[in-house]
Each structure stands twice: as structure tokens, then as C-alpha cells.
């Protein structure tokens, strides 16, 4: 169990160093301290959402509910491969090059 999970939802605290790791962002010690202070304030503020009675209220994921939107299953050209790969930071033989993942 992580330190975060043990605290329960009523604790306002956000562990910025831990959450930044989940979000895959390295922080400098200065950023970590500053964001901790700023996000403590923001998280304390957003707890206001618990004030109104929401029992029995359906959540809204999208303002306009749409379901099962289909388009014709017709083939059409995709993006130009050359234009797409031109935006890649590293390319080998027309493929995205990445650091070794599997030993």
C-alpha cells in the first residue's frame, strides 16, 4: 500500500512528489515545494464540491448525451506516412525508435 492510499479520501493532502511520478513528470526540488503549496490550496478549495447534496444525482460525463454514433464503414485514405513520421523525434527504417523495453 502506498502512503496515499492509506490516508483515505477525507484527507485533503496531495502528495505531489508521488502523484508527479504517477503522471510521469520529473520535478525539481523547487517545483515540488512550490506545486505542493499551490496544489494544497487548490485541493482544499475544490473540496467544496462535497457541500451540495448529490445523493441520487446521476453523474454527467458529457453535457449532451449521445449513444451509439456510427459512421459508414467505408474505406478511405489515412494520413500521409511521410508527413506523420516527419514529426517523430527518432525514426529507424520508417518506424518510431524508442529505448529498449524488453531485456
Amino acid at each position: 500500500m502506498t502512503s496515499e492510499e492509506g490516508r483515505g479520501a477525507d484527507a485533503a493532502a496531495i502528495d505531489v512528489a508521488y502523484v508527479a511520478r504517477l503522471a510521469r513528470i520529473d520535478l525539481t526540488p523547487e517545483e515540488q515545494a512550490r506545486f505542493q503549496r499551490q496544489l494544497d490550496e487548490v485541493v482544499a478549495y475544490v473540496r467544496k464540491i462535497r457541500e451540495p447534496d448529490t445523493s441520487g444525482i446521476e453523474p454527467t460525463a458529457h453535457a449532451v448525451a449521445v449513444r451509439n454514433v456510427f459512421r459508414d464503414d467505408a474505406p478511405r485514405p489515412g494520413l500521409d506516412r511521410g508527413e506523420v513520421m516527419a514529426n517523430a523525434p527518432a525514426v529507424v527504417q520508417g518506424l518510431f525508435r524508442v529505448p529498449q523495453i524488453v531485456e
Partner: protein
Amino acid sequence: MAEPVNRALPTAHAALARLRRGECSSEELVRDVLGRIRATDGGIGAYLWVDEEDALGQARAADARRAAGNEGRLLGVPVAVKDVLNVRGQPCTCASRILRGYVAPYDATAVARLRAEGAVFAGRTNMDEFAMGSTTENSAVQVTRNPRDPERVPGGSSGGAAACVAAGEAVVALGTDTGGSIRQPAAFCGCVGLKPSYGRVSRYGLTAFASSLDQIGTLSADVRDAALMLQVMAGADCMDSTCLDAPVPDYGAALRDDLRGMKLGIPREYFVGGLAPEVETPVRTAIEQCRALGAEVAELSLPHTEYAIATYYVIAAAEASANLARFDGVRYGRRARAESDPMTMYCRTRAEGFGAEVKRRVILGTYVLSSGYYDAYYLTAQRVRTLIRRDFEKAFAHCDALLAPVAPSLPWRLGEAADDPLKMYLGDIYTVTANLAGICGMSVPCGSSADGLPVGLQILGPALGEEKVLRVGHAYEASASRPAAGP
């Protein structure tokens, strides 16, 4: 009080009339705009990128198309585009380091529809990085100044778009509005900003910030141009399943000079506490003007307004953290040099590529979605969102549109709220509600403070009720431009 601030600015409809009568060419029109950019943008910083040769080439193509008798609804009109919307062959960086050098391989649907009608895409406008901010100071590239006072911010996140229209450096501009990012800079710079209802305009080709809130709209010199642009962009798109398959009415036909028979609501909660008197006075005067134009005006209540900011920042941050996960240094944009293993590559790429506000929101969003917190924050916020949406549904059962301020204050001084995120968030109180509810809204200039800083009147309409909002805005704007009708 209600002076016609935009009388001197170019409009698309006036330009089109001249083009169709053969009084000018698109090339001349685009040269004028490029000349204006050269002359004034050094002091404003609205544009991130302009390609003069390419723009002139598009203009000459438009002139040739007209000469061949093939009209278009925007044929030859230059349109500035916020740097978050893809225009094929042009950079699209979202004013972020992580996308420096990215070239769009396709047109956004909204762009493609404008292009098909002959619009000319001359440049890319500055914004808060990934549209996260209310001042454009979160741009990783440059500062944009308010054309009405260079010591003030232009608002955000579509600050460059609003500033270029207000400075006459564009005829009309595309922006995006996730929590007020079109309406607030329009109010701060003194131009018209239209945020259509959620689902009215396809989001395909808009780099997503918060997918359930984002919507593409316009910044323009007047309401007629907003109607003209929406007419071209609106309607179903097979590339965006959330884009509604609802008929697109004739928006131009909705523009009339009176408000007889219309019922307008004044939400009590939008005039309390923190509203600056310099903002409230012109807005109240504009409301009286609407009454004088024949509207029935009555106060009403949107009781859950006080929870809107908290609800918005939970939902927007959550969606942002998911949407921005794609910026990992693999397929596009920047990659950090050290790439010994994937985890290090991701963490360093995002550390180097994102600015402070983007990092804060991704971290906040990751937190509210994380195990043990999802129900307490994200799911609760979605339930409160339902309450806010119902407030509007009840209000629109009794009235056609609502009138309110856009922002509680005049444009901030540069740097005033730069490193105080909560202070900046609270300034969005009157605008985030429309995005949470999925309704449409527009900001129309309604005068100035004693210092000459612009103030906007916000007109909110029901989902797909753009005709009503445009009608109110146009009638008010027309009356404010008639000297005899002024207060």
C-alpha cells in the same frame, strides 16, 4: 458608456461585400492585414507564426476562384487560427515546448470547412500552453499584450486570437473555449467572442485539453461575423462522434434590430461579492438597453453557481491528465536527450516539455483520478455538474437567454496573477458554467471603464440556442452603435 468600439475594425462581411463588388482583391485584403501585422504586432505579440508568401498564394488562388465564377461564403477572407487547431502544413505547437517543430499533417474539420469556402489561413496565434490559463502568460513562447493597454493581459487562453482581432491584425480568428477561453479574452480586448454549444462544431483536429468541455468558436469584430463563421463550421462530422447531428439554422436570419418578445434572465449569483463596480456598471447599463429594445427582463437564480469553479477544475484537470498522456516523446514533438530506459524518457521529456501550469493541472488531474480519490473528487464533481446543468435547464424553461458579466474584473496587469493559480481560477466563475452545462455563450463589448479598458456583456443561451444568443448580441450591438440610442 456604450460606445461603438469596433466601428474601425475590419469585418469579414464588409470585406466580402467589397470583394464581390470587385472593389478590392483578396490579395489586397491579405496584404493589408500582413502590413498591419508588421506594423503593430511587434508591440502586441498576438501571432506565433505568419507565412506571408503562403498567405498571398492562398489569396491569389481565392481571386482566381472568384474570377472563374466559383463563389465561396468566405472566399478570400483571412482567418487567424489559435495554435491548438490543425491547419495542414502549418505548425501546431499549442504554445508548448513539447510540440516545438510539429507540423500538422491534416486540417481540423472546422478549418477544412472554412477552407472549402475560400478562407485564407495567414497565421497562428498565441495562447496559454495547451489552452490552460486565463491570461496567455502561460505561453511557453512569448507574452501577448492587450491592444487596449499594453501593460495589461489580453485574457486567455485565446489571448492572441482576441488581441489580433482587436488590433485589426486579422479580420476574424478561430479560438477554443473550455472554461471561458474565447469569451473572457474577447471581453478583455473589446471584441466579440462566440462559444457555440457543446457538439455544435466538430472538435476533430483540435488538440484536446478537456474533451467534455472543449468547443471551437470565433473572435470577431462584430456579431454578424460570428454568425457567418458559425454557419460554415457547424454541423455533424463523422470524425467526431460527439458532434451533434442537429439541423443548422440560418444564423444570419436570426439577426434583427429589436428584442421584442424575448425574455432575458439575470442570474442573481453573477452579481454578488467579487464583481468589480467598473464591470458591473456597464453590464447593468447594457441590460437596461436590452430592456429598451423590447425584451422582458427578470432576475432569476442559478443556485449551484458557487460550486462551479471547484467542479470545473476537478473535471478539466482529470480530462487534461488523460489527454496529455500522449505527449511522451515517442511519436511526435520533443524527446528528452537522456533515453536510457522508457520511464526516464517519459519523465524527463514531460519535465522539459511542459510549463508550470500544465504540470500542475496534470498532477491535479492524476490525483483526482487516482485510486481512493476517484469517487470523492471526480465522480462527485460529475454529480455536481448535473446540478449545474439542471439550474440552466430550469432557467431556460422561463427565458430565452441570460445576461451576465464575463469576468469579475477588468483585464489584469501583466504578472498580476502569474504564479497564483487559485486566484486565476476564481476569475473564471462566470464562464465555466456554460462549458459544464454544454450551453452556448457569447461576449459582446458593452463599454469601457473610466481608464478605457473594455468590458464584455455575456449572453448565455440554451444548448443549440445560438440563434437566440446571436439575436440578442446583434440587437444590443446595433443599438450601442447608434448614437441616438445611447444612454
